[in-house]
């Protein structure tokens, strides 16, 4: 009897000891995206996909509960920085899995570096892994130089010689323009136009393109502006004269519903292709559809995979996220096989991923979708060309 008691006590003691001392406390993750404002159509779905990734782990990793704290950046840098400060200082989050807007990224970067707060973002701003780089900042999305260089090289391989460029009057588009110039040579870029974000009427630009005699047109604009320019491109009959090549997420699945039927044939090159036939992609698409009744696109993919990277890193350090140095070291080494293949971070914490050449086509259900063409394996940020 005494030995039975002794064994029971020993087992009980071992049981409590075996659990990590901090196991009761949940891991708090700050999830800030624009949930209202002009970029809410991308921000909300990305958050939903992040939630999906943690749900797949039953919101428990390495024995610790996961708590996601949501904040709305509204798409504005001042609001975004205030909300990040609230997450870090008031809510005491362990890490940030936040944001996609460039201007907010630029505003938040110095603060998280100073706070030594691990921050995984899907902000395509090239400077996050260059001038603003920090051991605590991870950019899980291709940089503007990275996706534009890839797009330009694909078009060049297709035989384009003279090109026309139209993009937002904003950093990612300006950087894309630099990349296109580098690949084609400045003399082969016939003309470049930079209308403001949210321009509704592209008529003057389109008529100018029509007279340019270029082999094709690059566009570097996203969100609601993408379907709008395609619509007008078709109305002005330009789709019959020059192919349109969208840089980055121009033909992202959530935008295809707003594109006209004549968008068939619009090209792009990016890290997500909705119709790719892999088991992981099937799980991702079906999981998202059953939860949110919509087809996921590249923003959802980016959020989902960024969360998967974080989950793997937390597992690798056995849930001890309080040790930030250990966490960032683990995250830097993580490799995850996801819906589109393996993803990882390079030595400056930029995203390394497979790219696919995408062509808009009409699916069997009559809806527009992306056809997955050539796979370009493990594309890295071109630091050498754009230091």
């Amino acid at each position, binding site marked *: 009897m005494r030995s039975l008691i002794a064994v029971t006590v020993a087992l009980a003691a071992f049981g409590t000891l075996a659990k990590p001392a901090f196991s009761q406390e949940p891991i708090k993750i700050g999830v800030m995206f624009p949930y*209202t*404002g*002009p970029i*809410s*159509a991308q921000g909300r779905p990305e958050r939903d996909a992040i939630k999906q990734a943690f749900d797949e782990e039953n919101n428990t990793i390495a024995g610790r509960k996961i708590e996601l704290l949501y904040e709305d950046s509204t798409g504005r840098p001042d609001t975004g920085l205030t909300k990040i400060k609230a997450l870090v200082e008031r809510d005491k989050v362990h890490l940030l899995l936040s944001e996609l807007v460039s201007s907010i990224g630029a505003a938040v970067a110095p603060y998280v570096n100073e706070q030594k707060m691990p921050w995984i973002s899907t902000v395509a701003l090239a400077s996050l892994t260059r001038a603003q780089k920090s051991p605590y900042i991870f950019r899980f999305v291709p940089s503007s130089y990275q996706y534009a260089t890839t797009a330009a090289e694909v078009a060049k391989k297709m035989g384009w010689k003279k090109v026309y460029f139209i993009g937002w009057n904003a950093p990612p588009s300006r950087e894309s323009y630099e990349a296109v110039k580098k690949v084609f040579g400045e003399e082969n870029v016939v003309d470049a*136009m*930079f*209308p*403001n974000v*949210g321009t*509704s*009427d592209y*008529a*003057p*630009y389109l*008529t*100018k393109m*029509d*007279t340019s005699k270029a082999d094709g047109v690059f566009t570097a604009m996203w969100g*609601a502006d993408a*379907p*709008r320019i395609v*619509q*007008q491109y078709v*109305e*002005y*009959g*330009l789709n*019959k004269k020059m192919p349109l090549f969208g840089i980055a997420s121009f033909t992202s699945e959530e935008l295809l519903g*707003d594109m006209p039927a004549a968008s068939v044939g619009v090209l792009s090159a990016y890290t997500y292709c909705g119709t790719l036939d892999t088991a992981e992609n099937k799980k991702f698409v079906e999981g998202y559809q059953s939860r949110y009744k919509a087809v996921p696109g590249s923003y959802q993919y980016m959020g989902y995979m960024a969360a998967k990277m974080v989950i793997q890193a937390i597992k690798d350090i056995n849930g001890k996220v309080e040790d930030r140095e250990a966490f960032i070291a683990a995250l830097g080494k993580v490799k995850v096989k996801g819906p589109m293949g393996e993803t990882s971070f390079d030595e400056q914490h930029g995203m390394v991923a497979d790219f696919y050449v995408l062509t808009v086509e009409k699916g069997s259900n009559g809806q527009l979708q992306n056809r997955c063409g050539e796979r370009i394996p493990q594309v890295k940020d071109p630091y050498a060309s754009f230091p």
Partner: protein
Amino acid sequence: MMFWVIQTLNGISFGMLLFLLASGLSLIYGLMKILNLTHGSFYLLGGYIGLAVVHLTGSLLLAVLVGSLSIALLGALMERFLLRRFHLQELPQTLLTFGFLFIFSDLAIVIWGGNPQTMPKPAMFSESVQFGAFFYPSYRLFIIGFGFAIAGLLWWMQEGTRVGAMLRAGVDDEETARALGINVSLLFTMVFALGAFLAALGGVMGGPIMGVYPGADFEVMLLGFVVVIIGGLGSLKGALAGGLIVGLLDNFGKVFFPEFALFTIFAPMALILAVRPAGLFGRE
């Protein structure tokens, strides 16, 4: 050559939408001396209501009717129950309409969400017309024709009808008009409703080109004011001329000086203010 024709058509079609907006702004100011800052909201709400009708019924004609008539009613109610209390008190009126601009702007986000939307075009205008080597969307040609038709109709109403005569009398001398037995108070409500109607009409008709999105109210109103400043407050002719001038300046500015697109609109405006402070067709 064709390049110039097409670019000119681009400018005129945009100018026509500005005319619809500015004519109402101008009429209201001319008669009541109200600087109506809610005008941008009328444009935006008209667009959203039109969009809702198109999604429900698929008919742009119905969207135009429901969108602009419901906003006309809204305008009439605003005038009758609110603005009337501050007759000829410029500051309270301006503040009141400014307040409504914000209220309607936020209300639109609450009801229709923050995502920009595009109005589908009627099927008969989905084709493009070919000019030599260029294609031109037929809907834009329709907008040009429609704009001139509305301009003609307003002109006839103002110059050729009894209501128009009453309106002109009210603009020239409100007190004498009242003394002559003209129901000026009814006229006020009618003109305010007509102004709102025209702005909403611009919102619905412009939907397939410009889209309907949060912030459009402020954007178009800024341009509407430039049109009125150039053309002259209170003048229908001025609204038409100003609309065309701003539409063309905006278009060619974007083509030739893309980096200074706003400059090409505001510089001529400043020039006109310096030379003719009342605008091209305005009265001192």
